[in-house]
């Protein structure tokens, strides 16, 4: 019987369905919007239909994410930190450091080979260390966030800004524009700033190889390039990194309700 994990993210709701063996049967994602509960219902239905199963077929549902209380009826819940650790080791068995950069929050989780959390640090309640920083800076730079990554790859690294606060970062970007710094150089400075902020979090807990990068921001090539430039370790980026939380939750459901793998 299948198991489901649902991640009530601030920006998107994500659902992952696993079979008894821990194989991924389906994924689904949709914006959380103004009614996250409705979005969750909708995303869950989509995932069921992608997997070609009915709601009754699901043995156990685990929920995680910032909007946990808005989730549809789940059998259990799991913290985002624990979900990251489980997903990290599932996706890369040698992973001991999971870097999760989300829309409004970032986490660094250090775990053991079984996906148990050993240590972690969070960036919460501050926009500077998350996707929100990139979005605000893209607005200030007047480029589409989807295009900023590609743009940044053309740069040599002649400019820099500070990522300690979104509000001041915007001022930095505007003054770079006034100084006629090319847009691609500013774009790179933006990614470098976020990468530096994330790396300072990594240093807080201490880096243990291997390193896996997950969360929605892991899909941004500008950010992964910056992190690879600045972190003194190899970084593995899985396919579908934005589903790590939902995957971790589904793995918890599987472990909780019994499956063929631990």
């Amino acid at each position, binding site marked *: 019987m299948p198991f489901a994990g649902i991640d009530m993210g601030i920006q998107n709701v994500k659902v992952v369905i696993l079979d008894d063996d821990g194989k991924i049967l389906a994924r689904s994602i949709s914006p959380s919007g103004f009614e996250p509960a409705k979005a969750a219902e909708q995303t869950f239905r989509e995932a069921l239909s992608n997997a070609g199963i009915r709601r009754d077929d699901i043995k156990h549902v685990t929920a995680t994410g910032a909007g946990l209380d808005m989730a549809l009826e789940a059998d259990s819940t799991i913290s985002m930190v624990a979900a990251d650790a489980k997903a990290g080791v599932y996706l890369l068995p040698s992973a001991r450091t999971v870097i999760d950069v989300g829309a409004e929050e970032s986490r660094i989780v250090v775990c053991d080979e079984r996906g148990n959390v050993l240590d972690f640090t969070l960036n919460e*309640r501050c926009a*500077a260390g998350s996707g929100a920083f990139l979005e605000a800076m893209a607005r200030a730079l007047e480029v589409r966030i989807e295009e900023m990554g590609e743009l940044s790859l053309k740069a040599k690294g002649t400019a820099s800004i500070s990522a*300690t606060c979104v*509000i001041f970062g915007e001022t930095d970007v505007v003054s770079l524009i006034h100084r006629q710094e090319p847009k691609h150089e500013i774009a790179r400075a933006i990614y470098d700033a976020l990468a530096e902020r994330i790396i300072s979090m990594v240093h807080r807990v201490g880096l243990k190889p291997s390193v896996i990068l997950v969360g929605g921001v892991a899909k941004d090539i500008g950010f992964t390039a910056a992190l690879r430039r600045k972190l003194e370790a190899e970084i593995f980026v899985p396919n579908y990194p934005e589903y790590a939380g939902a995957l971790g939750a589904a793995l918890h459901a599987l472990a909780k309700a019994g499956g063929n793998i631990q």
Partner: protein
Amino acid sequence: MIEGSQQYWRWREYHLVFPEKRPKQSSIITAGVDIGSVSSKAVIMVNGEIYSISIMRTGSSSPDSAKKVMEWALKDTELKLSDIHYIVGTGYGRVNVPMAHNTLTEIACHAKGANYIWGPTVRTILDVGGQDIKAIKCDEKGKVLSFLMNDKCAAGTGRGMEVLADLLKIPIEEMGAVSLNVDEEPEPVSCTCVAFARTEAMWLLRRGWTKEKVLAAYMRAMAIRMCNLLQRVGCESELAVTGGQSKNVGIISRVESLLGMKTLPMPEWEKDGRDPMAAGAIGAALFAKALHEKAKK
């Protein structure tokens, strides 16, 4: 002003000259120029007393801002830049004050300035500037003994207040009074991040909170941050507040009630130029006098 395009963040820029302090032949004329991230201040002193003061918004270039604010301070004074014996630059953009003979940190200048504004009883200074919050301890001469400053975060700073003013569509100079217009003080917001306030404040308003209540919750959270900093540095009476937020009654009254301690009253700065927002420039002009006298010896 066209309705709908009001710039709520805009605060009053001004220039005041006090003709009774007009220099004589033998007067020592000095100036302090404080280039902050949000506002630029210039003070011209005659024998260590404020003769002219100007406060304006900092532009995108520090040297230009320094020139403009200094030119404004010279206006209607019968003085030329070359008449000033010594100029000290301070603030975030202090290395870019082209006419300065010397530069000093804004921490030293704020302590010196607070000592001038309120007298030798000042022991602790809460300086809330455009981009940071500082807690400074000083002795009876205005000499810095220790200080702490927050990590670079806009919450509670002048820049953060400007963003909130625009967001809630309340003129920045009225925000303090508006925030006190609540029946009961709400719980502070749990997230003070100004970037997130754009969505969080909207969410609170949609839940039926009044603008006054939203603002009160933000101001309370920011006052708590300031008090934490003050307590870490060891807040001793008497406490002075400098920087732009010294004029924010919403912040000041909350800091006072949280600390259980009064802050020094706002001086009648329109009569003599002792504006706590210009404490850095005032301190710089005083240091300029001391440096000029030392150089002459």
